[in-house]
């Protein structure tokens, strides 16, 4: 089956990942790190950037090799490539800051099994040329980082009364500790999804209403 390649890079190639196909809020991919390391903004940012780096590198390599990899062993090849870049990230983070490494724990290594990365390799990188893949995975990675930051900032703000480690509310604020604990992760993500669903629903309703009035106007005329 010949694969059709659409070589045009549009703004959507980049923006899809950030909004319309946001890996976390829309596609619900890679949930484990999303919930586990978002108890503070700095952790969320580090995790997001690490994932973006791995996604970018592995997607570009897969895109480069896409004609050379036999279909039967493609998943194995992808996983090896992803694991390589994750190991590299793991060591680089250790070299840069051990504190950060300890905060993120094993979740750096668990980027390997982030379904988003394998999903992008399978669904996008093996079908598109290098430049387009880079643009798209950059968008996806930033979308992922954006989602992590959304969660991280809410959780740190409510659970610790601070943002990026700087106290926001002052001493009188009684931190809402449960927000930085595991249950808070589930609840905050659930609330974000609720918000997006509500926005989407409202938009659809608005469109429906306006088209209805339009139809009515026509009918009257």
């Amino acid at each position, binding site marked *: 089956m010949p694969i059709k390649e659409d070589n045009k890079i549009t703004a959507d190639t980049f923006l899809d990942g950030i909004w319309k196909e946001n890996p976390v809020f829309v596609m619900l*991919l890679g*949930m*484990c790190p999303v919930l586990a390391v978002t108890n503070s903004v700095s952790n969320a940012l580090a995790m997001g950037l690490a994932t973006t780096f791995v996604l970018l590198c592995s997607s570009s390599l897969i895109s480069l090799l896409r004609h050379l990899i036999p279909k039967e062993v493609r998943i194995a090849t992808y996983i090896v490539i992803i694991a390589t870049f994750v190991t590299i990230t793991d060591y680089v983070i250790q070299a840069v800051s051990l504190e950060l490494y300890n905060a993120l724990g094993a979740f750096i*290594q668990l980027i*390997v099994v982030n379904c988003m990365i394998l999903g992008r390799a399978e669904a996008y990188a093996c079908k598109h040329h290098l430049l387009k893949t880079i643009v798209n995975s950059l968008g996806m990675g930033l979308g992922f980082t954006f989602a992590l930051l959304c969660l991280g900032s809410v959780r740190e703000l409510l659970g610790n009364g601070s943002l990026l480690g700087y106290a926001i509310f002052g001493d009188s604020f009684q931190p809402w500790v449960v927000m930085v604990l595991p249950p808070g992760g589930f609840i905050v993500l659930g609330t974000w999804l609720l918000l997006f669903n*509500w926005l989407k629903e409202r938009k659809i309703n608005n469109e429906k209403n306006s088209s209805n009035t339009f139809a009515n106007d026509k009918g009257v005329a």
Partner: protein
Amino acid sequence: MPVDSVSFIFLNAFLINNFVLAMFLGLCPFLGVSGKLNTAWSMGLATSLVMLISSLSAYFINELLVYFQIEFLRLICYIAVIASAVQLVEMSMKKFSPSLFKALGIFLPLITTNCAILGLALFQTNKNYDLAQSLAYSTGAGAGFILAIMLMAGLREKLELANVPNTSQGAAISLMLAGILSLIFMGFAGLGG
């Protein structure tokens, strides 16, 4: 209870640090395959089986890696082992229990990208567990996974009958449920203190 006793490790992985609800591992199947009780049961069982096999293999592989001082290849080796363990379970199930194989269907290959399994292998290495401890850890984690996914499936079956507002249907309400379950599991923390 001493912290490195087998029974404590089991309890720790089963309840206190439940892989799904306290450590956020294996969320994809937890949210994706928890719609019905019987599929959840099969998924939990298959995952536990793979956990056990890959934990055992990871233990021996780690011994080998340490012996040759090539620990930096750990991640790549583990993921390869897990992928083959999943294949192994799939093939042996096909041969010995075709009915179970049919029931699990597409869920089996998906286990490879379940972070609970890689997480288990990595954690047991980080914690320097010996063979018996690794076994206790993996059975505990497997049992914990089954418990979590079954609880969730039971709740979601009831949820079908409930009148949930349109906006919060699907993933949003499931996450809220998971949050409440996780709150409950927080009560187990400190059990070993």
